[in-house]
């Protein structure tokens, strides 16, 4: 069944300051939506609020995935309901190996007694790592510890591939990647495209969208989606920057919640 994801009137605060001021967005399985916008306009906040980062307080709105409001759920329940966020800054956790971590994540989706067998798991993980051109030693490395920026991003994509989510949010997955790594990551994402799965790609560079072609493009400013369109919108933003959007909408300062 194709995923159906509807965000309505989402408002969120960080430390009492409102960052998201009413986000509305609808997406279905098979679609790729890009959210673009300059720094400080609330893009990453949207990703974190949807996942349930403890620092963000959702004050209004709903985010309904296949009939269930994710915002009513704990972080782990959201993940098990099918949401996946590839993070901009993944945590490093010493002592927990990449494979132990991912096996726990997979088993959290399975009933007790029906855990994935170790051999099957390792085989799957090795195959996916090969696709991402990751050194097999990353299986036994501690989670993200000592990984380079690019290695962390690949590891995020690896997790996405292993967990088979319904809705994937990629939060600035392109930051810190050189062009070769970017291509590998994009290939990984494209390999996961399916009529069931939806993607929300957050970026402020059009570059990524050359490799992951969006169906819809949204521009975020001041904590809202201020403009939506097709792939041509991303191209125009790349060619002309964001100034014309600001002029068209009469926006002077596009940021939100920044210290003055």
């Amino acid at each position, binding site marked *: 069944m194709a995923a159906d994801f509807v965000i309505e009137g989402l408002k969120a605060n960080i430390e009492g300051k409102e960052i998201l001021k009413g986000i509305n967005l609808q997406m279905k399985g098979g679609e790729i939506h890009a959210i673009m916008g300059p720094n400080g306009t609330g893009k990453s906040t949207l990703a974190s609020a949807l*996942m*349930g*980062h*403890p620092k963000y307080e959702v004050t209004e709105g709903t985010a309904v995935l296949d009939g269930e409001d994710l915002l009513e759920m*704990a*972080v*782990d329940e*959201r*993940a*098990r309901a099918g949401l*996946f*966020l590839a*993070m901009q800054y*993944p*945590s490093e*956790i*010493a*002592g*927990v190996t990449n494979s*132990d*971590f*991912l096996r*726990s*994540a997979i088993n*959290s*989706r399975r009933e007790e007694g029906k855990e994935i067998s170790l051999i099957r798991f390792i085989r799957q993980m090795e195959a996916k790592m090969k696709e991402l051109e990751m050194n097999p030693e990353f299986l036994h490395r*501690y989670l993200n510890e000592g990984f380079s920026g690019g290695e962390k991003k690949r590891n995020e994509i690896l*997790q996405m591939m292993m*967990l088979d989510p319904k809705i994937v949010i990629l939060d600035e997955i392109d930051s810190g990647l050189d062009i070769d790594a970017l291509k590998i990551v994009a290939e990984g994402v494209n390999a996961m495209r399916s009529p069931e799965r939806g993607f929300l790609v957050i970026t402020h560079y059009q570059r990524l969208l050359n490799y992951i072609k969006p169906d819809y493009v949204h521009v975020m400013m001041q904590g809202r989606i201020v403009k939506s369109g097709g792939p041509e919108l991303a191209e125009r933003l790349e060619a002309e920057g964001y100034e014309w959007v600001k002029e068209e909408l009469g926006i002077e300062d596009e940021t939100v919640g920044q210290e003055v």
Partner: protein
Amino acid sequence: MTTQTILPVDAERLSELSLSGGEPGWLKDSRLQALALAAELELPKLEKTRIDRWNVNNYGSYKAAKLLTALNEAPSAIAALIKDQEDGSLIIQHNSGVVYTRLAPELAAQGVIFTDLQTAAKEHGDLVQRYLHKAVLPGEHSIAALHAALWNGGVFLYVPKNVVIDTPLQAVLLTDDAEASFVPHILVVADTNSSVTYVDNYVSDKAEAGLHNGAVEVFVGAGAKVRYATVHQLGEDTTDVTYRRAVVENDGTIEWIVGEMNYGDTASDTKSVLKGNGSSSDAKVIAVGSGSQKLNYTTQAQHFGKNTPSDMITRAVMRESANSIINGITKIEKGATRADGQQTEKVLMLSPKARGDANPILLIDEDDVTAGHAASVGQVNPEQVYYLMSRGITRHDAEKLIIYGFLAPVVSQIPLEGLRNQLQTLVERKLGQ
């Protein structure tokens, strides 16, 4: 101010005990001198710990133990530890005395001695006398003095020159009678170029308050290698005070693996004296504190020899209202050129009432050395929990992964698989999972 040491036994009774045990005269004298010292000495001074408020006087009195005729007669409290040990080298101490001793015949044939210390004092008097109380001195404080006066049972392990032993020798020490004194002394002597692994477990099974006053002395000869692993899992009512010390000659190696899994108040001090040139020490301590335990763990390395590396790692998890003071002392003496002393103490606290205090201390009297320390005290990082949960892992499992992950880098380095698994199980039990 001086506090009067309460002597659990008088000189007359101590003499009687020594005589009735058939101990040699030098040992009786050694006990009596230590008892006299105990009366004059004060309790040890422990960093930020009021050991004077602990239950350190419940010695009980010597009670003769009944020998086991077969291993399957051993108390059930230690059954799991001695499973399948019929053919191994094993000593069991039950309260005040050793009740079972077995040395694998192939080791005996190579001249290895493995027996209780009281027997060794009779049968190998010269050897025992040369080493006994030479690393932990009775004059250090009243607890060491009382130990030297009262020790019972115990283990003597002697490995002759050039003998290399692959299988670990083991001891299990059980206290289940609060009225019986439990003061085992472990003495290990590894002669030149020998190699040995010794593993012991301290277990209690009783409800009344008791005390373990233990001392461990390890003498590592030139080029010898001793791996000493010890797991303390004494119950809530047993106070544990243990001094461990190794003296290492030229090119010798001591490796300590210490699992502090007690449920009662614990003070332990594990020290390597790197006497010879090229001698080295590696100490790993894993600790879990729970309930209202008061804990004071010290690891020390003292460098006299040149080219002497030492490494000390302590990782402790504190839950509920456990209170721990963790000290690491690296002392490099003048003349110990090219010594390298490293230490790390890390504490993870799982509750707002838990306390952990890490004190790294470097005392260096020589210029041509390298030394380093790292210490950290912290709580489970909420960002890490969020990250794990964002992949579908429950909060409980996420925290569990992080806690085990905190200990894993040290546990995974333990070279004995059985011990590694045992520690893992004890950690799980102490963490209530």
